[in-house]
């Protein structure tokens, strides 16, 4: 029997990765705030018909342009006032959350599938696949996204589905860049060679070894892309080539309120605040997730 002993395991093991992340999450202010904001928004979006005090499309010509309740002339019937058609602003804002969340999640998911697939293939297979994908990436970046989106939505016809698809198809570059770099890095690590020696096919290596290591980064990017997609829809709707009236979209509400904004600034300020808070929530969540899953990358 040789003199090698079992290493002394009297002391407890360091904590498992999952536990470490949970501990970090509990203490991370930005993450908690972002998560709260987004979760609340998703709940508001889902339960909008139950939460909104009125029908967002109900017009009332007698109560047009009423200010919010805290301003002179406001009433408790319409907490946040009404717009040019007498529709209750609070209800419209609540239903606007539906549009933003729906389009944001949809577009970010489409972008995820396109970008991650291209990124992993380019990173793993290299060679001409990589060159082709790089070319595609540069072409995509060269395209003025907003312009093309505007043109396409206008031409094909504005509907929620069209908007989701077009925004999604134009916003996959961030996913690509990050997953490609990460895949290249992971591919060169020894455990991939070990998996190949153990008999893994490339497909098995990608699914079993590489993708699990990409998931934290993909989730982080998803939250950022959520914010980007929501802003993209808002811009399109503001310019008139996105969601069409009478649907309540925050961007559209800002466009509709623009004419009267000098005397009734709340028409423009309130929807913008909603957008601002939503995207800040998404970004805080993204930054927080990044800190939690890999603080080494944080400095």
């Amino acid at each position, binding site marked *: 029997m040789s*003199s090698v002993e079992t290493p002394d395991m009297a002391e407890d093991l360091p904590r498992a990765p999952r536990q470490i992340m949970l501990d970090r999450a509990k203490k991370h202010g930005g993450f908690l705030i972002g998560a709260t904001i987004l979760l609340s928004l998703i709940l508001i979006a889902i339960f909008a018909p139950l939460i909104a005090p009125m029908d967002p499309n109900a017009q009332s010509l007698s109560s047009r342009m009423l200010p919010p309740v805290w301003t002179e002339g406001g009433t408790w019937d319409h907490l946040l006032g009404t717009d040019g058609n007498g529709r209750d602003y609070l209800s419209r804002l609540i239903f606007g959350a539906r549009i933003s969340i729906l389009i944001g999640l949809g577009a970010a998911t489409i972008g995820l599938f396109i970008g991650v697939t291209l990124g992993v293939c380019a990173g793993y297979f290299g060679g001409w696949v990589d060159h082709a994908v790089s070319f595609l990436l540069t072409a995509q970046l060269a395209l003025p996204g907003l312009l093309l989106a505007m043109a396409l939505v206008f031409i094909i016809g504005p509907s929620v589905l069209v908007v989701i698809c077009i925004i999604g198809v134009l916003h996959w570059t961030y996913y690509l860049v990050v997953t490609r770099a990460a895949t290249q890095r992971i591919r060169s690590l020894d455990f991939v060679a070990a998996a190949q020696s153990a008999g893994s096919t490339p497909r098995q290596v990608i699914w*079993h070894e590489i993708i699990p290591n990409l998931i934290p980064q993909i989730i982080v990017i998803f939250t950022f892309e959520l914010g980007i997609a929501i802003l993209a829809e808002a811009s399109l709707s503001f310019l008139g080539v996105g969601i069409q009236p009478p649907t309540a979209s925050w961007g559209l509400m800002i466009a509709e309120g623009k004419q009267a904004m000098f005397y009734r600034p709340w028409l423009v300020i309130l929807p913008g605040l909603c957008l601002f808070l939503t995207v800040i929530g998404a970004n805080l969540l993204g930054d927080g997730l990044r800190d939690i899953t890999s603080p080494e990358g944080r400095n």
Partner: protein
Amino acid sequence: MAFLDIQNLSIDIDLPAGKLFAVRDISLKLERGQSLGVVGESGSGKSLTALALMRLLPKAANVQADVMGFDGIDLPSVTDGTFGKDILGARISMIFQEPMTSLNPVYSIGRQLTEASVRTGHFTHSQAKSRALDLLARVGIPEPKLRMQQYPHQLSGGQRQRVMIAMALMLEPEVLIADEPTTALDVTVQAQIMDLLSDLRREMGMAMILITHDLAVVSSNVDKIAVMYGGEIVEQGDAAAVLSQPSHPYTRALLNAIPRLDGDARELQAIPGTVPSLMAPPTACVFAPRCAEAKPVCTQHRPPNVGTIAHMRRCILTDDDIAKMVAAVPAVVAERAQVKDDVVLSASHVTRVFQTRTSLFAAKHEIRAVDNVSLDIHRGETLALVGESGSGKSTLSKILLGLDAPTTGSVLLAGEPVTQMQPAKRAGLVQPIFQDPYSSLNPRRTLAEIIARPLVLRGEKSSADNLKSAREMLDMVRLPARLLYSYPSQLSGGQRQRVAIARALITSPKMLICDEPTSALDVSVQAQILTLLGDLQRNLHLTCVIITHDMAVVHQIADRVAVMLSGQIVELGTAHDVFGSPSNSYTKSLLAAAPQFKQDTVLA
């Protein structure tokens, strides 16, 4: 009063998790022109001590010392401005471990050599330039004028380290601190750099502090040695005394854990346990948890410093206790497994050529990574494949594993060509062990999943059976079963390497190919892994190919040796023949360059 006098230096670092007591009450003295070797494993605090002297510690570090004197000057009282102008570079200089990243990539060599001395006004621009040229020639850089205009990325690692040395010597400092100056370099270059440092030291009458983890390097290059462990100096004194009569259990254990080039191969003594966490202030002997000679009082009080300037230790053991320790001599290695005649792997005329192009329109550039290599590996033998960087040994190992195909030539594994073999069959014949335990395990999988994966891929047995096999493997590499559901990030380097071995063995392969299996591990852990590999090989009748640059490891475990240079095998023979009477000049230079102990300490 000594030239450099440090008394009771302590460094603690503020971390988010608490205070790290990284260096605890160390005292060092150095005279003019003397050289001191500070030896220790990672985490021993040796680098931090040097950084404290140079005021290069991060902001979160707090330094306290009773005395920090240099040539009569009280260092802590010198202002930062004066320190930067008059001491740093001018009187005390430092060179670092990573020559590849220690030079600023956007400035020329010439500018980096001359800028500091010109800025502080020590030289005019032309004086600095001519001094730089002289030094570049002196450190052995050919065509110094040309090199002055070049940028760091145009130089090799060894050349960059020479430039760093020249840079450190521009103002003729009186003390040179060298922090692991050769660890990142090839063995032959290592020897050249160490010789250069010794020559320069003698020429310029410089004192030197050499920080390293390699006891062999230190044995032939320094006057005095300080051995550090867990932030403390556990033994200190004249190099000859400390190495020939080590009086601290840690020093002895360290010497017994290192493979040697001289004499017969001896059983390596592994040091059980791991380096302690230093998050609490010292209240007991820092080595006691791992010490074979520990007494109850060791865990209650800090041991005092005992001995003279010439040889001192921090230990409560008496001279009698030490005498008894000395008497125990490690045994010569037991008979190695019988080498059979049948050939497990046969490589014939294997050549691997890489075609690269720097850009779309440039000419194709050919690199012969492996050039006409033929090798037969017999069952049960341990073959060492030795070479420095660029020798082609890693490329060859990938080809032998079947992960890469040779451009010409063939590799037959158990009679069948590797490239045409089913991956499942190949996995049952040959498995790898890699160098870096931190990248050879998937961080997102539990140990159970990692170890059982090769079996899962074969799909032959149920998951319950696979789990059982994984448990057996863990046992075989002597890790506790409760680790099955933990993640690699919870394990130390040595433990991870064991897991890698467990994974490699689960398919019962006939052959293991180990690429530098211990280079990334601490000395004390190396011994554990080498001994484990040796035992497993004997018990499982494994054939092993060990790729390494370390001749001492080769001497410890190899039956046959193949030496590679520029893709070719330049020497192949039994270990006995290659070490005793090497025929190739490159082999001879490798053996000459390998750091050796001047004296035999263990058999005293």
